[in-house]
């Protein structure tokens, strides 16, 4: 027998409360058959004008609704706390857990059978998944997608990565205030999140590697028509997932977390991945510790040539075949048999991927770095561990003894230390 829909606990009643739950909602003009046993899908939206990376998610939500309706479901879009990485002080990390509480309670308290999570900017992805895990309904993620490549005076600019060069450039007086003003908009050419393999792209890829999206979605630029097409397909799919009772805990197993760690190494993903993946594992109840990141991902080759570790940007990545190619290339380094949101396995989802540019996505035989994962450090300075991303580091500095200099820089929670290499000596060697 088919499981009774959760939403019918609200809408199925013939008593006063059933009337209350239906009647007020019907002020939106819904016909009465909306509430007679159709799967009710919550579209959990982090749209905000103060979260520029997610500024297009109202449009995406409308397309998701189309898919939900086509599949015989009923969509309700609702807002949750949105975390704008480039705006919020002192740091969005302070609010990730708060946003996850909003998500969890908003989902549980409402008459929802399935959830579509609309995420984009760095913390919006983990906060949504964390909150949804603590409720554990059928859930699919639609990531907003990266911005188009930054274009500036004949060259390319990577969002975020360029920021770190500003001080260097200004320091050498080769970059005027006018240059900076022009670069501002040239690096932000369309809707979407950072066009580098920064934390937002890393988080979108993480969601896909965990099996929480339709295959290929994470690398599609925000303004490419295929982003909307997949959003519509996700709307259709979530209704099926409700009918199949395919919950987050059915997808998020230890194996899917290991896949995610492998993929993150292969793409040269952000170190923030570690913290967010562990928090998600903690919510869903999968055992995952810091050493696992090194054990599972430490020996994985770097396959994509994307900033900040490499040269290209997310738009190039998509045109080269995107994440599908990486998944196929990783092959037996991944657990191929894990279930994903579309009801198919990894092996089925990515078997047909084709690479169109080997400059951007290389093969396992010719990796950009043979062992690109996160290294987990131990010692008396970090009894519980610390991490370093070798693919972003200078090889010459990775084995080093030196004197340190303390910097009184940060007043919140964290104190930052600068550890100076033994003065100016080997510095020239860095080039």
């Amino acid at each position, binding site marked *: 027998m088919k499981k009774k829909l959760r939403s019918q606990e609200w809408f199925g009643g013939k008593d006063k409360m059933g009337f209350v739950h239906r009647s007020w909602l019907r002020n939106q003009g819904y016909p009465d058959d909306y509430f007679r046993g159709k799967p009710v899908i919550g579209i959990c939206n982090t749209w905000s004008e103060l979260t520029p990376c997610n500024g297009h998610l109202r449009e995406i939500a409308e397309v998701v609704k189309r898919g939900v309706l086509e599949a015989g479901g009923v969509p309700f879009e609702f807002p949750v706390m949105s975390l704008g990485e480039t705006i919020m002080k002192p740091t969005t990390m302070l609010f990730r857990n708060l946003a996850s509480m909003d998500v969890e309670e908003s989902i549980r308290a409402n008459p929802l059978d399935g959830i579509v999570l609309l995420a984009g900017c760095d913390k919006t992805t983990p906060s949504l998944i964390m909150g949804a895990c603590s409720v554990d309904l059928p859930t699919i993620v639609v990531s907003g997608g990266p911005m188009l490549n930054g274009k500036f005076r004949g060259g390319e600019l990577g969002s975020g990565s360029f920021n770190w060069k500003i001080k260097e450039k200004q*320091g050498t007086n080769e970059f005027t205030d006018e240059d900076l003003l022009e670069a501002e908009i040239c690096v932000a050419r369309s809707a979407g999140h*950072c066009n580098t393999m920064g934390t937002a792209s890393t988080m979108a890829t993480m969601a896909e590697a965990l099996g929480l999206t339709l295959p290929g979605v994470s690398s599609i630029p925000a303004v490419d028509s295929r982003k909307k097409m997949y959003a519509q397909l996700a709307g259709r799919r979530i209704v099926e997932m409700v009918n199949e009772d395919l919950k987050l805990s059915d997808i998020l197993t230890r194996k899917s977390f290991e896949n995610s760690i492998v993929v993150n190494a292969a793409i040269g993903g952000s170190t923030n991945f570690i913290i967010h993946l562990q928090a998600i594992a903690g919510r869903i109840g999968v055992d995952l510790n810091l050493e696992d990141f090194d054990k599972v991902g430490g020996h994985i080759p770097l396959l994509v040539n994307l900033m900040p570790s490499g040269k290209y940007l997310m738009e190039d990545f998509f045109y080269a075949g995107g994440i599908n190619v990486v998944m196929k290339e990783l092959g037996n380094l991944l657990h191929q048999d894990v279930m994903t949101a579309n009801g198919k396995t990894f092996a089925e989802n990515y078997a047909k991927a084709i690479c169109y540019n080997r400059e951007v996505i290389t093969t396992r035989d010719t990796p950009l770095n043979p062992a690109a994962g996160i290294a987990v450090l131990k010692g008396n300075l970090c009894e519980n561990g610390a991490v370093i991303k070798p693919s972003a580091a200078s090889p010459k*500095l990775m084995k080093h003894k030196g004197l340190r200099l303390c910097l009184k820089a940060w007043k919140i929670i964290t104190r930052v230390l600068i*550890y100076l290499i033994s003065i100016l000596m080997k510095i020239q060697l860095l080039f």
Partner: protein
Amino acid sequence: MPEVGNVDLPKKLILKGVKDMVRISDGRMSGTAYGTVVLHVSPESTIGGTLAFVQDGDEIELNVEKRLLQLHVSEEELAKRRANWKAPEPVATRGYVKIYLDHVEQADKGADLDVLVGKSGSVVERDLH
């Protein structure tokens, strides 16, 4: 746990052409950043992790191949510094930040609030009102 682990290089060094140096922090780093940066040091300095007791002139050994991050200061000296250490004043005494300070876990566990770990499922026992 802000994204400042990849502290900017001092201007003085930039002008000398230095592009990278080792940095060690209990903070995070932007995914768009790069450099030889040790992050997420746990336990963090604000709760009395060893990082809090490091002083100018100490020798620190970083060896990524051996997965080692070691402060070369004697146990006796460290114990002395620990005894003289005072925890910083909390940055909040009310509101969400107070809840955060009281409940946040260390970086090696994912920095979730301890009371949020796990799940409560989707069943709501009590009806509206």
